[in-house]
């Protein structure tokens, strides 16, 4: 069976690959959206935190024999703590200033993190084995689906929906959303806003790190893996419109799919297609697809 002259097998394979990439875009842009929503900071260090998460998992396995499942919990916790430290030491000094300073500061931080790992591990990649439980592939009849990739898509959907639920449907989420609107008023109601802000950045960092751990068995773990991805995620965020959590998840997944399809039909364009979509969306809707701000 063929679709537009492409074997169905190859087509679906690329589609799954696109969905997996989309899952990473979704998780990363979700973290960016959460941090931006409450802190008004475009976290340029997000890609570096994703890279640190992947390295944390790799080091845990390599040095201490800690397996994937523990790393999936431990690495985000560690990076979350790193995020808290970053927020306390650096970011809290920038609140109230032009958000551009936050962008520049986190850019500096990402250079520092990247440089340290490059000094330690060079630019050649480290490979991380697929966890035993998820080795192999399932034959769906019309295609062979690698188990681990299916797991990544599922895990990312669970995390994204969980975050969405937490923010849109719980009391804590209500405080968070209110804090973004008017921090002083929420503070006056007895909510510890600085604590909330600190934990939000930590949680955003942890989300990035979790994406990193999930990515480790699929790609080579290298110091540059984050800086290559973050620009695409920025484009996703611009397309989705930065305010919306659901928007970033949907946009991330859809763009991953579009990228996968492009790889089937016109491979040369696959690395630019996200940016082309961005240009088209911006011309039609400058605020992004889900953006509210004028």
């Amino acid at each position: 069976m063929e679709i537009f002259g492409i074997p169905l097998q190859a087509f679906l394979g690329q589609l799954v690959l696109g969905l997996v990439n989309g899952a990473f875009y979704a998780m990363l842009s979700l973290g960016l959206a959460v941090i931006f929503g409450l802190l008004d900071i475009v976290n340029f260090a997000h890609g570096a935190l994703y890279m640190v998460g992947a390295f944390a998992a790799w080091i845990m396995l390599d040095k201490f024999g800690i397996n994937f499942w523990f790393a999936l919990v431990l690495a985000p916790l560690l990076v979350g703590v790193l995020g808290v430290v970053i927020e306390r030491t650096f970011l809290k000094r920038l609140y109230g200033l032009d958000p551009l300073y936050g962008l520049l500061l986190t850019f500096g931080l990402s250079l520092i993190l990247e440089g340290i790992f490059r000094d330690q591990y060079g630019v050649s990649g480290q490979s991380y084995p697929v966890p035993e439980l998820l080795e192999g592939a399932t034959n769906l009849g019309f295609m062979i689906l690698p188990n681990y990739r299916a797991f990544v898509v599922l895990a990312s959907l669970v995390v994204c929906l969980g975050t969405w639920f937490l923010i849109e449907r719980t009391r804590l989420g209500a405080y968070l959303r209110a804090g973004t609107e008017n921090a002083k008023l929420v503070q006056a109601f007895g909510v510890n806003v600085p604590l909330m802000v600190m934990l939000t950045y930590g949680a955003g960092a942890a989300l990035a790190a979790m994406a990193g751990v999930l990515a480790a068995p699929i790609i080579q773990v290298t110091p540059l893996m984050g800086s290559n991805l973050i620009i695409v995620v920025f484009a996703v965020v611009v397309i989705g419109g930065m305010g919306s959590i659901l928007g970033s998840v949907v946009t991330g997944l859809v763009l991953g799919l579009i990228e996968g399809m492009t790889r089937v039909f016109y491979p040369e364009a696959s690395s630019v297609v996200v940016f082309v979509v961005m240009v088209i969306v911006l011309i039609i809707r400058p605020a992004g697809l889900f953006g509210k701000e004028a």
Partner: protein
Amino acid sequence: MSMSTNHTKLIRATYIGILVLALVAPLIGLYPVFVMKLLCFALFACAFNLLLGFTGLLSFGHAAFFGFAAYVTGYFIKSQGWSPEIAILAGTLVAAFIGLVFGLIAIRRQGIYFAMITLALAQMVYFICLQAPFTGGEDGLQGVPRGKLLGLLDLSSDTTMYYVILAIFVACFLGIARIVTSPFGQVLKMIRENEPRAVSLGYEVDRYKLVAFVLSAALAGLAGSLKTLVMGFATLTDVHWSMSGEVILMSLLGGVGTFFGPVFGAGIVIALQDLLADKVGAWVTVIIGAIFVVCVLAFRKGVVGEVHAWLERRRARA
């Protein structure tokens, strides 16, 4: 009043001193290629500062203009045998055109959105450079000859090349100063300070921003073209987004919105990279990142900006 004239005199004397130093640099044993490279990046930083410092637009995609122009110039000289002045002009014009396209798209949004959009657009140019047939892919363009300027001046001599670059740099520096102090420049400053007011006064703000963006892109392209001529190569490094970050650092470190700040900042960054690259390896990135963090946290005015502020305070006290 007299203090204020003193202030101006001091600044003028500093400029003349630096110019004299630049004129005699090859004679007193400063390596000309290093100073030329520095001047190219200083011009790049000045072009960037025209946009950020005087119009208030943070572009995170200036590597696209610099790098793409570097390729265009290198390609025309090396593969088409064009003379250097025409190839430089071509690089500059192509950069201006890309600037026009970027500007039309990005100016619809402000602040961080503007920054992120320019960054994404520049990354698109990066991928095009990676795959286009004329750029040499991963290897870039190597061994670009300098040729003869206007068929007369043999640029293969470092000293001749040096004075040509210095002349172009000084002309551009004065040109930027002229633009900024002109009525057009005053409108740009007003847009930076209070955009809604500029709109309500009836200025077509978007048009002013676009002109500033194209001018800045063209000058960045000129810097990239000259860099190819000086160094003899154009590579993916020139067009990668980390180059956009570097030019931001140069301006920020020297002093955004000052005339001389970007030149000073470019000097420090290039010197650091040249001096440290062999000795500390990947720590150069760490050091540059740390300078970034310190600039943003502790002295947002930059070195030249802080000196200006100090002079102002002293004047106020006197």
